[in-house]
């Protein structure tokens, strides 16, 4: 089995990395904080020109027909640069949800309109019931919202928003409410629940990838700071007490990465096992990122917590994302449920899953 990313996947990741590392800098993130929308519209346009919103949309619907495994490293890069724009959510959560609705023959003409708008660079927000707030709700043109097990699609004019302040100044969150009417309903009951379940997995996986990217960026900034900063005639990073703090985070990152890649792969080939794999990824990634926030603030000394220090951008994003799409307790419970199933197939030969959920249960 070849566990490496393909040449294409690496080129996609490299293309996104080139753009994002050049265009999303700490100074430009701070610039967004004083703008009404909080968005860098030229960057969103650039992402659209690169083809990112179309990535996970099938070719028959005007997309590129790629999968989550093709995007996972890009989601990591979005985290690495602390990209404020909800690119990962648009590509990995909203577009596939709209495609799922169309594939099942649900909904109405507005679904295609919303998908076309998304592929054209407009924001389409997804309000999964597990998340109390929607990021950049005021800038979204369309909303996919939940009510019970129902899935609803509404234009921005049909929802009510109550903006809230996030711990992360790059995020513009709001509570969104709406009237659940049949006119806007795309799916109800079992089909609605199934759509929301797969959306939860995509959201949690994309967030996990971003969290690992954030953790890696915090480590890189800390290594640079502790190499440059001298005290008593030597770099502070030369002291074991500092090295060990950073090494602990590096180990957690290395443990989290394969779990995330495994989850992306499993979600693609064996969606029935995705709950378990994605929850494992979210727990591992959030742990690595939260450990990075603590240890990186420590090694930056008194600087780490200040407004002037860029580290705060990454720290606050990690705090915000660690609880999005389910906190640690929620995902541990999902793992627990999976492990204690009477006929759960566990073991190294099943790490990457085999067949569908039906096969697994039958066995």
């Amino acid at each position: 089995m070849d566990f490496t990313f393909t040449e294409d996947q690496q080129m996609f990741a490299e293309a996104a990395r080139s753009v994002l590392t050049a265009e999303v800098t700490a100074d430009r993130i701070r610039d967004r904080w004083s703008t009404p929308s909080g968005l860098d519209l030229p960057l969103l346009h650039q992402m659209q020109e690169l083809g990112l919103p179309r990535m996970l949309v099938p070719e028959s619907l005007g997309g590129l027909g790629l999968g989550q495994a093709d995007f996972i490293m890009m989601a990591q890069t979005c985290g690495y640069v602390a990209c404020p724009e909800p690119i990962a959510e648009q590509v990995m959560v909203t577009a596939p949800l709209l495609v799922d609705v169309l594939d099942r023959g649900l909904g109405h003409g507005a679904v295609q309109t919303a998908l076309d708008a998304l592929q054209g660079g407009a924001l389409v927000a997804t309000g999964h019931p597990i998340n109390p707030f929607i990021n950049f709700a005021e800038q979204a043109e369309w909303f996919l919202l939940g009510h019970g097990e129902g899935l609803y699609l509404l234009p921005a004019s049909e929802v009510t928003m109550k903006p809230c302040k996030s711990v992360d100044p790059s995020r513009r969150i709001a509570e969104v409410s709406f009237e659940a009417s049949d006119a806007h309903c795309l799916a109800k009951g079992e089909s609605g629940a199934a759509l929301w379940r797969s959306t939860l997995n995509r959201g949690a996986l994309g967030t996990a990838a971003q969290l690992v990217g954030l953790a890696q960026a915090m480590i890189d900034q800390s290594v640079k700071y502790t190499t440059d900063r001298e005290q008593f005639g030597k770099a502070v990073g030369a002291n074991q007490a500092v090295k060990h703090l950073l090494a602990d985070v590096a180990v957690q990152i290395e443990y989290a990465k394969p779990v995330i890649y495994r989850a992306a792969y499993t979600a693609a080939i064996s969606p029935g096992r995705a709950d378990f794999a994605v929850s494992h990824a979210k727990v591992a990634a959030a742990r690595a990122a939260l450990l990075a926030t603590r240890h990186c603030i420590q090694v930056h000394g008194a600087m780490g917590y200040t407004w002037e220090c860029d580290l705060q951008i990454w720290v606050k994003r990690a705090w915000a994302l660690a609880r999005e799409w389910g906190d640690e307790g929620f995902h541990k419970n999902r793992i627990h449920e999976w492990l204690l199933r009477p006929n759960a197939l566990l073991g190294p030969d099943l790490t990457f899953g085999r067949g569908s959920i039906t096969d697994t249960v039958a066995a």
Partner: protein
Amino acid sequence: MKALVAVKRVVDYNVKVRAKADGSDVELNNVKMAINPFCEIAVEEAVRLKEAGTVSEVVVVSVGEKSSQEQIRTALALGADRGIHVEVEGRPEPLEIAKLLKGVVDKEQPQLVILGKQSIDGDNNQTGQMLGALANMGQGTFASEIKVDGDSLQVIREVDGGLQTLKLTLPAIVTTDLRLNEPRYASLPNIMKAKKKPLEVTNPAELGVEVKSHVTQLGVAPPPERAAGIKVEDVAQLVDKLKNEAKVIS
């Protein structure tokens, strides 16, 4: 009109280059490689000319080891139509590269050849000029603007103290300066299309060129570390030091 663009594989400009411990060469293990930035500008210019309808085909060529094909693929993703890889082991000198490019020029018969003015690893700034001499073509080096007008080419060059405008008869050679354009990023659909574009592999023997090195690298050393500065007591001391130690004022 066919345009030929040369690209070189170099250490990415964001990477801090380090010398090997034994000082024999630059450390290249696990170092990110990329298209030389000036060559990227050359690719962008050719693609823009194609988009404007001036150029009908953009052929990208790279001389180097097999890994150079990565940079050719990147150029194809940026919009070039096909690639040629001249496979050479080791690190060829500018004259050898110019001779190999001359072989490709003879075969392809482009009307316009665009190269970066220099590579950021060797910093030689020689290949374009040597190719101009070998191919007997007019050359517009350090171009900050080019305009094709019928069978001639107008090139605005960046020279000390200003700009120089030249008119060249095609076929001609252009080497790009930093301000010629701002290269685009490769889009995902174009990366996917690039895989299907043709990439021909050739070698010096097929081009009738003998690759023979005339230069031996004896060593590589990092620049000396900058000494710590000092604080001067007053302006008079500063002026004294600038005048007598640094000798930058009289």
